């Protein structure tokens, strides 16, 4: 990938330990066997690509956010409302990950923000190389926010760093407050947890305090926003956080 963009290319680091590598076990007769102690991370290529994306983001002061959740938790709605509320102050760019359709990309396009759709087909997550390609196509302006809506799936996207600054996991109150216990890796890898659809709290059996307690048990550093993307309750806190992050004022 570094060869296509020409920016700071380097070979994936080989983790093999010198003296231990390529030790021939037998020399007598074919086939020759070689034992290789590798200790290589399986996702090393993705880690490398993610680090490379991160360089892009830092160089052009782009705040990249990776939005993950189960299908239907409200990622696209949250994006639409966020862009509409802040578009006079902040330039947004959006990457939409979806297995098949263009539906979400069309919804984002209607807000006026530039959007690229990545269809992953059978793949159930975005990876850093896909985001890199989209980056070079879209070229987000300096000092903008790049929102990446991942494929709706609480398992696979947890493993794939995209180079984002923040990973935002959304759960909605219609999903059950044990979500963080069932999908711990996603909550463990996230920085922010949005609890969406709070307008439905009176109608569902969802214990808000318990859901947060569950989430904190897998990740004590999580920061929460409770909101209703459609009705607007709690949106002000979320928007304010984005404003401050965009301005580079750590919250």
């Amino acid at each position, binding site marked *: 990938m570094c060869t296509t963009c020409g920016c700071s290319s380097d070979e994936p680091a080989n983790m093999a330990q010198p003296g231990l590598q390529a030790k021939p076990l037998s020399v007598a007769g074919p086939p020759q066997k070689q034992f*290789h102690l590798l200790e290589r991370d399986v996702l090393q290529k993705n880690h490398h690509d993610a680090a490379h994306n991160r360089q892009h983001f830092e160089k052009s002061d782009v705040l990249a956010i990776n939005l993950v959740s189960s299908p239907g938790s409200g990622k696209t709605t949250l994006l639409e409302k966020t862009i509409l509320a802040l578009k006079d102050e902040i330039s947004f760019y959006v990457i939409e990950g979806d297995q098949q359709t263009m539906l979400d990309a069309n919804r984002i396009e209607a807000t006026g923000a530039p959007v690229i759709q990545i269809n992953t087909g059978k793949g159930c997550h975005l990876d850093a190389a896909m985001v890199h390609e989209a980056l070079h196509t879209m070229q987000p302006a300096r000092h903008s926010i790049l929102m990446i809506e991942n494929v709706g799936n609480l398992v696979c996207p947890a493993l794939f760093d995209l180079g984002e600054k923040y990973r935002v996991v959304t759960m909605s109150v219609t999903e059950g407050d044990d979500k963080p216990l069932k999908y711990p890796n996603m909550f463990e890898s996230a920085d922010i947890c949005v609890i969406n659809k709070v307008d439905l709290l009176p109608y569902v059996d969802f214990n808000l305090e318990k859901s947060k307690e569950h989430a904190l048990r897998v990740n004590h550093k999580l920061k929460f926003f409770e909101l209703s993307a459609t009705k607007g309750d709690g949106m002000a806190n979320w928007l304010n956080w984005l404003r401050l992050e965009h301005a580079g004022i750590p919250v």
Partner: protein
Amino acid sequence: MHELSIALSIVEIAEEEVKKAGGTQVEQIVLEIGSLASIEEEALAFAWQEAVKQTVLEKAIYVIQNTAGRAVCLACKREFELSFMYDLCPFCGDFRKELMQGKELRIKSLIII
């Protein structure tokens, strides 16, 4: 099912290592998988069959070494083993912890022929 992309990444690395070593195929591959890595071994075995076809791993035996989860409690500073990411500290009951081990997903070694 991310196990397929995991299997494909393993194939990619194995192809590269075999080429570097001047070999033709892999006889044995040892994978280290942490018990908190969110890899389902059955799903991986299934994906494996697809992913290794006509590659240097086609005939390889694969061995999985599991690594247990370990964390250090941020309240009492003691270390403990955990079976689930959401486990509380068995000594003081606190929920704040730093994971030290258990998310590994590594190729430990290869025997190349």
